[in-house]
């Protein structure tokens, strides 16, 4: 009985998964976005092969600073003579790493608190809701700035600062879904059969909020990457790693924009926009597919 029941559930989930894949295929912009992202991730992983680190060592570079793009340096050089394309490649590693890790952290906090706020009642609900409301209201940029200013500099600090400040929206979506799920008769049946909080959340609520969390993840990664570059731009990043934000900080500090060194201003910014746009396109498509109220529109 139970085995055939869970087999049926599995079959249904598989069918639903196929349906989602089919629907994604009907969103060409999402496919393009996903393809580009894959390419960028592969390039980021291959950075050490494509551009050995010692070619970006300030003490070893042979090129002059602020050289415009040429055959030798496709995207020109930065103020200390390093190849901008090389910096861009290495910078993608920091941006993606922070983007994914911070998002993972935000998703864990958001999903846990969102389900807690939807499932429990009384004082737990009141307290959790208060916390969610607070983080919804307080500007994440300002909070992330303060967090990364008071903690020691480093990539992990940036990840924590972004992860801790960007989960409230997810918690809200998850809570709404939890509330909807818990009104279903099968939850009541499950409760009548003696299921505890842990069973209901783990077996019923969590699987049903997961698709929403996935869609949300893709959207949050993009925002986390923007936030990372903003923090690095304000000088709060890890001084020992290259990132797109720290390149733009160098550009500001050396007056590259006013001096007309366009390659050094354009390259990192366009890289950020492309990556974030890809995540947004994929995320929006996923959201449209998985969120029935949006699909109706």
């Amino acid at each position, binding site marked *: 009985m139970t085995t055939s029941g869970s087999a049926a559930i599995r079959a249904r989930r598989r069918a639903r998964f196929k349906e989602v894949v089919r629907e994604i295929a009907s969103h060409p912009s999402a496919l393009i976005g996903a393809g580009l992202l894959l390419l960028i991730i592969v390039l980021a992983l291959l950075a050490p092969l494509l551009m050995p680190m010692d070619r970006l060592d300030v003490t070893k570079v042979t090129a002059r600073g602020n050289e415009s793009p040429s055959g030798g340096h496709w995207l020109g050089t930065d103020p200390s003579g390093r190849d901008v394309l090389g910096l861009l490649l290495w910078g993608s590693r920091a941006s993606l790493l922070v983007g994914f890790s911070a998002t993972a952290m935000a998703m864990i906090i958001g999903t846990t608190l969102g389900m807690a706020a939807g499932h429990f009642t009384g004082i737990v609900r009141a307290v959790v809701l208060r916390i969610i409301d607070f983080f919804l209201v307080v*500007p994440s940029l300002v909070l992330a700035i303060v967090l990364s200013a008071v903690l020691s500099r480093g990539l992990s600090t940036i990840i924590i600062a972004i992860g801790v400040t960007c989960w409230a929206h997810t918690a809200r979506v998850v809570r709404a879904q939890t509330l909807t799920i818990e009104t279903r008769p099968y939850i009541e049946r499950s409760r009548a059969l003696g299921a505890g909080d842990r069973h209901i959340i783990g077996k019923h609520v969590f699987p049903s909020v997961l698709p929403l969390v996935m869609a949300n993840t893709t959207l949050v990664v993009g925002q986390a990457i923007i936030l990372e570059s903003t923090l690095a731009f304000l000088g709060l990043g890890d001084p020992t790693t290259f990132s797109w934000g720290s390149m733009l900080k160098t550009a500001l500090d050396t007056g590259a924009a006013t001096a007309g060194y366009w390659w050094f201003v354009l390259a990192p910014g366009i890289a950020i*926009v492309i990556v*974030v746009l890809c995540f947004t396109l994929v995320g929006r498509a996923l959201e449209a597919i998985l969120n029935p109220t949006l699909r109706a529109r």
Partner: protein
Amino acid sequence: MTVIETVPADSEDTRGSSLPRYLALKAGGSLISLALVVVLGFFMFRIMPGDPAINMTRGRQVSPGEVERLRKEMGLDQPLLVQFWRFVRDLFTGDLGTSYVYRRPVTELIGDYVGPTLLLTGTAALISVALGLWLGQKAAWRRGSWFDKIHTGVALVFWSVPTFWLGLLLLLIFGGGLGWFPTGGMSTAASTDTGVAHVLDVAHHLVLPVTTMVAVIYAQYLMVMRASVLEEMSADYLTTARAKGLREDLVRTRHAVPNALLPTVTLIFLTLGLLIAGTVTVETVFSWPGLGYLTYKGLSAPDFPLVQGTFVVFSAAVIIMNFIADLLYRVLDPRLKAS
């Protein structure tokens, strides 16, 4: 840049409650948030590894005696709770501590720098609201047309652009490249202009930072206004209006748009607070002498009392704007009042 909800954060179910109860709930919520900001503002600057007195003087040459005096001055020789009590008491009397770089009270500094920020965000808000709402209702009315596709596409791209980079880009093109606009500051240095000439000079300096902020924020208004008008478009009263023989333009401007404006009004107040917080990057790029630039200066010093002060001010501004949004949401929509 950030995802913004059309409807204010609404965790408790307040739909059925009476107006005084709703007000009390919202006011209570905002007060708790403000209290949390104060608590965070105090304790976050205490979780810093090491001694705050040493942290606050980091990168400066100080004698051990000076550090000791500083510790006394900051009340660090007292228990943590006493320190917190003093912090709260000082806050209520408008005392946010003393900046280390400027050697002046933080409150006084914030007072000096708040004007330019309000000028910048005020101008940017007015322009982006007008632009966003107008484009949004047009895009919705011609859903699926080229106008709609182009404008929602552009909005999506702007949503993916980091604010500070857009600023750098404008600086590159119009400041450095074409030289049409000044590259930083609020007025020409050493200028003795007064009256109209001074106003024009400030306006000239204002163009690039305002354009940056408008480009980032107008897309939000566009998308919400578009969705809002789309929702109204199937409403029966529009059929009635058309049946009366009204021209399509009048159906839109007299009937659909006023109703669609309701959700956007709350959105405007929600974004105003965020706009103020977003000045950190824009003002840094254009060295616009406002609160955001002050924060940046405080971060690079580092001048923690200053950062602590601007954190409290920025967060409080956002929370208050949110409260106003909550109020308007309820007061403006008669359907919510009736229920």
